[in-house]
């Protein structure tokens, strides 16, 4: 009898703290162009939600309209999703969160979706500090409608056909900080490590976490006249510091030296460590954050990293002082006052 060949044991599949592999965190197959920055961002979202061990059934993903806004179909396949209308995802997200504040919400928008048609709703989402992660996949152009300028396109940048943009750009990070968002970051779809750390910290944050991610459009806006091309962003990325994030359930020693590191404790006890590189950067100082953004913009650079954090401000549902349970599923006796209440009202009207 021949020896049965021994099969080496398959390496144990990696699982997260829920015992899940990464697969359930993926979504449908992308229909975006190969190489589109948005796909890289989806990858980071998959990775960070998996690593954080978030239960997909407790996540909602929302978006507006655009290539970027299609992407929620490509991550977190076990989560409910809502692809809203152009520019109006913030209101839909707000309603959903009011209905069930125990959910984790992630919204994906484009720079056109947010900066043009949706700028009004963006403003009010930020000022309400609605607890959600709001990602702008920022390519400086309209992808889905084939390459027109968006409001984040820089002065002097050109379309593929050479048309020059002569209007100043909106800086969504400056706006978000001014308007009241309590977590504001900028990153680059090509910077895996930074974007992952920012996303994980955003998941732990309670309040609006606004992340502007430079995400080159390889089809319409990756040419030499663009300031949102891969080459340009890579060369002009002014990293504010290295970011390390430690979720509340992990207890690992942090290698950062005191004195060069700023530690921020987030709402749920997670910690965000920011190692200063270029200069003294304090992400809890609003004025400094704005100053850095203005200065880098003047130099034609992008400051990336966590720009601003304010972990303690009340979010919108706290302000509204709603009951702890989700409003959506309250039983009848909680939502219909007793007969005595109606009798009392009727009496007052006689």
């Amino acid at each position, binding site marked *: 009898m021949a020896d049965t060949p021994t099969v080496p044991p398959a390496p144990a599949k990696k699982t997260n703290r829920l015992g899940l592999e990464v697969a359930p965190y993926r979504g449908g197959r992308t229909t975006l162009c190969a190489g589109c920055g948005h796909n890289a961002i989806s990858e980071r979202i998959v990775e960070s939600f998996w690593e954080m061990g978030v239960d997909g059934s407790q996540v909602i993903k929302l978006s507006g309209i655009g290539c970027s806004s299609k992407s929620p179909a490509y991550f977190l396949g076990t989560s409910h999703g809502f692809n809203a209308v152009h520019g109006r995802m913030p209101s839909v997200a707000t309603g959903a969160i009011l209905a069930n504040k125990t959910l984790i919400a992630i919204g994906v928008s484009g720079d056109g979706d947010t900066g043009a048609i949706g700028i009004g*709703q963006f403003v009010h989402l930020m000022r309400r500090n609605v607890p959600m992660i709001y990602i702008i996949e920022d390519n400086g152009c309209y992808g889905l409608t084939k390459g027109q300028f968006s409001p984040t396109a820089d002065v002097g940048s050109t379309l593929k056909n050479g048309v020059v943009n002569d209007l100043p750009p909106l800086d969504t990070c400056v706006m978000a900080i001014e308007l009241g968002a309590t977590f504001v970051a900028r990153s680059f779809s090509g910077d895996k490590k930074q974007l992952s750390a920012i996303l994980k910290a955003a998941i732990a944050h309670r309040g609006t976490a606004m992340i502007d991610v430079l995400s080159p459009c390889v089809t319409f806006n990756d040419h030499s006249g663009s300031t949102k091309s891969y080459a340009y962003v890579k060369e002009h990325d002014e990293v504010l510091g290295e970011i390390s994030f430690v979720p509340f359930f992990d207890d690992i020693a942090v290698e950062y030296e005191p004195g060069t590191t700023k530690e921020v404790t987030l709402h749920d006890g997670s910690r965000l460590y920011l190692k200063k590189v270029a200069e003294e950067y304090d992400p809890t100082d609003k004025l400094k954050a704005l100053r850095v953004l203005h200065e880098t913009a003047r130099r034609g650079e992008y400051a990336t990293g966590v720009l601003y954090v304010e972990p303690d401000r009340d979010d919108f549902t706290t302000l509204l002082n709603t*009951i702890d349970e989700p409003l959506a599923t309250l039983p009848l006796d909680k939502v219909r006052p007793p007969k005595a209440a109606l009798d009392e009202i009727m009496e007052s009207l006689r």
Partner: protein
Amino acid sequence: MPVPNAAVQETAIGPSPHRVVNDFSIQVATVNGSGSQTANLVLIRSIFQMGVPVSGKNMFPSNIAGLPTWYTIRASKDGYIGRKKEIDVLVAMNPETAKEDVLSLESGAAVIYDEPLNLKALRADLLFYPVPFDKLVAPVCPDAKLRRLVRNMIYDGVLSCLLKIDMAQMEKALRKQFGKKAKAVELNLGALTAGYGYAEANLPKQDPFYIEPMDQTAGKILIEGNAAAALGCMMAGVTVVAWYPITPSSSLPETLIDYMRKYRTDKETGKATFAIVQAEDEIASIGMVLGAGWAGARAMTSTAGPGVSLMSEFAGLAYYAEVPGVVFDIQRVGPSTGLPTRTAQGDILTTAVVSHGDTKHILLLPASVGECYSMAMDAFDLAEQFQTLVFVMSDLDLGMNTWMSDPFEYPTRPLSRGKLLDAETLERLGTEWGRYRDVDGDGIPYRTIPGDGMPAYFARGSGHNERGQYSERPDDYQRNLERLARKFETAKRFVPQPEASEQEGAEIGIIAYGTSHFAVMESRDQLLSEYGVKTSYLRVRAYPFGDEVRAFVERHKRIYVVEQNRDAQMRSLLKIDLPADLASKYRSVLHFNGLPIDARSVTDDLLEQEGAKPAAPKKAVAFSGGLGGE
């Protein structure tokens, strides 16, 4: 005591030989912002407390202060609560409109007026009662700054004396109005008594109008439609409200906030079982409703026509992605600002199909404050049962005016949450479940909500198949639209059914809806008693129309569709939905001047079209104010 005013006795016509009891209208013409609302509410309430059926209508300009405003109270022993066009007793306090107001009266009307206005000379066929308001208010209200507000209570006193409205009831109503504000009670009581005393001593009764006690209001309530709707929403278990201010809808969420703070907040923890957000605009408010409805909440907004226009894109998404939500449209005159403080039924057609592509929405058509209350509950149930938006089409007349009603009943039925997928159903359906699959043949699929642990799906406006997956396949799209049509067909059996009232042998059928109801009811009585014309009547209470609507049209030779818009919008909807061969039966009675429709106008118009009566001379409308915009 001042000496009797000789001028009164010189009036051209003498004391009326007959008595008109509990069947006349009083109109108070004041300046917007002069605080007359309190005096008017005390007046209507005291008549109501005497057991006499009443209704009150405010005609006010789109302005905060300074422009003319009118409040009309109709006392009707027969219980007619629609508008009566003719004014019997005018209280003329506004110099700007006094002349025009007096000239528009029917012969024999009584005019109580501010003496310096000197109106008596205008006409010889009216009865004039001059009252020196300023002289009377000075001694009862030493603080000159408050006089403007207290002054109006004097006409209540005068009316109490002239019309024999019980002063004790006036005082009771006044105390109810001011509650614990002792100083206000004292000042206003002083003015009320001063008015009464002056009339008693100086104004001999010339007119035939009397209020006498009746027993027709026992146990009834007085309420505005928007407050009734707010109550209905609270009882329906609304949890998320997003709104944006617009006349005439704002008082709905504002009243709702008051009620919810009191009755839906935990006394101990102070925590609310609701979230009410004043959104940044109507687009955001409907967006929040969609988000909340999708996430499983009972969500609503309220607005008027301009808001519905802005909600259009989201409305189509809600229809196609099948998201529940309730929208109250308190209709007003359009377009855009239009006459924002005047009433109309002008949003029917656009709202029925609002959005692009193939869309149809469920409309509920309340006619009374009672229906504002009950249909609010219907709306939430239907929205969840059919996973779609439900529009409740109220109007300014109903929403912002005071109506008498039976008290509202405490709802006994549980909340109907529709086809929410549960573990058992999932087990039964197995792979049969798909978010947009019609497993029961009624067009209504099973839905899941975020966080419920059931299978997730991706809601979107883009093409999708029965499983909710992105699809641009022609057969997927068509099948979806056909199912949505089937769902709408199913809704016919679940929406509030029409109410019919037929007269034996009537060839004429009248179809009306909403606030036109009261004018039609009264008009039918006029047609029968004055002209011997028999009519049958069907009040449509919802869209889609039930089969009864079609049967009613088939049963009658001619169908008069009565509505408050220019373009016969309901008639168009009937034409679209009912068989084409019925179309030749329809005629229209249309009313669209911004004032609530009245019975006499309906009667005259219908008779004229029947060829039974020569055209009545159309009287000029008494109200010309309402300048300014919002």
